[in-house]
């Protein structure tokens, strides 16, 4: 099995604001590719897409086009349809993106959905963090700043901040010293890797 399959998010909307807004926000997510379409039938240009695919569009659009999209994307490993809801009063759900969601919440929902594809395949260890988040966490416990972590991982500081937000949301731990303690308890790092007097 390919250990690192593509993680693709397809956003379908007539609104350029929605498309560019989500594209910008999803830079902080685990998605390896974001495809922006004005109409569902443009999917016909992507019959060769492989990997894990999330399709974001309004519930009405999904109802109309989901079976067509599934037919075209026959080479994808999995497809999940995620409605985009413009009604700010609707109940919160991790399976629906809402116009009023903060960028980090949108990334979190997308990441959760992408991770859920892997859950049946078994995770590498018993933490709920992704591999990238574990890398970021390891660097946090060594006392590196967001900028230094970004340089080491060749990503933007914005991405690091987004990973750190996700790590805190998932673990319920916010401070660097709390995260260090978490990483030791979860055996992500060894006590000998750090200076406990400084970091805890």
């Amino acid at each position, binding site marked *: 099995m390919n250990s690192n399959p593509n993680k693709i998010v397809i956003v379908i909307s007539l609104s350029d604001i929605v498309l560019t807004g989500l594209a910008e926000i999803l830079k902080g997510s685990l998605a390896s590719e974001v495809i922006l379409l004005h109409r569902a039938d443009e999917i016909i240009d992507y019959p060769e897409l492989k990997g894990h695919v999330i399709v974001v569009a309004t519930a009405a659009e999904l109802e109309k086009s989901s079976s067509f999209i599934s037919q075209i994307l026959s080479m994808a490993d999995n497809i999940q349809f995620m409605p985009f809801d413009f009604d700010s009063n609707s109940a919160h759900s991790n399976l629906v993106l809402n116009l009023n969601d903060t960028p980090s919440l949108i990334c979190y929902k997308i990441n959760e959905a992408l991770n859920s594809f892997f859950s049946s395949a078994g995770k590498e260890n018993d933490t709920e963090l992704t591999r990238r988040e574990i890398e970021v966490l390891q660097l946090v416990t060594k006392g590196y700043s967001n900028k230094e972590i970004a340089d080491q991982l060749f990503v933007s500081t914005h991405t690091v901040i987004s990973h750190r937000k996700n790590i805190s949301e998932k673990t319920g731990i916010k401070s660097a010293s*709390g995260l260090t303690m978490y990483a030791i308890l979860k055996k992500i790092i060894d006590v000998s890797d750090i200076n406990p007097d400084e970091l805890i």
Partner: protein
Amino acid sequence: MELFNENNKLVSVIHKDHSLLPVINRLGIKLGFGDSTISEICKKEGIDPAFFVEIINVFHYEAYFPEKKLMNLSVANVVDYLIKTHQYYRQYLIPEIDRLLKLFLKSCEDHCAESELIRNFYDKFQTECIAHFQIEETEEFPFILALNSAVEGDFDKNEFISRYGNFVMRDFEDDHVNIDDKMFDLENIIIKYLPPNYDQNIGNALLSNLFMFEKDLKNHSRIEDHILLPKVNQLLKALDRHE
């Protein structure tokens, strides 16, 4: 939301929210107050009933924070309340959490490597809290009280300026966020990530105290960040006008 008022019997208020007990202690009320109303008790103890009622309402109702009304409270009363809150943390709550934490960590019978980590984390957290209270008490609060006296004319303005002319108020907010985060982390580490070989009853008692401390600290920070700091700015402007 039905707010408490000075005609309420204090005993009914406490039955409604017993977490107010340490708050009324700080305001100068001791147990054994019978069936008296807030206004009767305040009169007897020489406490401003309006101040008393606002403080217990702000503590009880998280959504209640009438900034304009609170800005009219006496600075001396607010500072006095905050200092008494620090005393309560230092003399009772922090030592009590410390005691329970020791018992809790000792209750692990196997080789519990994480005990030392948690101990270190709490020790540092405790030291940071106490240092924060200390700075407020020795630097910030005396400045605020002197500023208030200078505006009210009880303290010579020139004297105030010569003493505090270069004083820069620290923004409490960063410290507060840091303390809140660490408190939250400690709770979650114990609830979510600790192996199950610790005494659960002591763990529950420890967590109850941590939650109590968390709630109290949040309230305390709210008063400092949203009443005291704006009040200082207001007083500084008033002092400029007098010059």
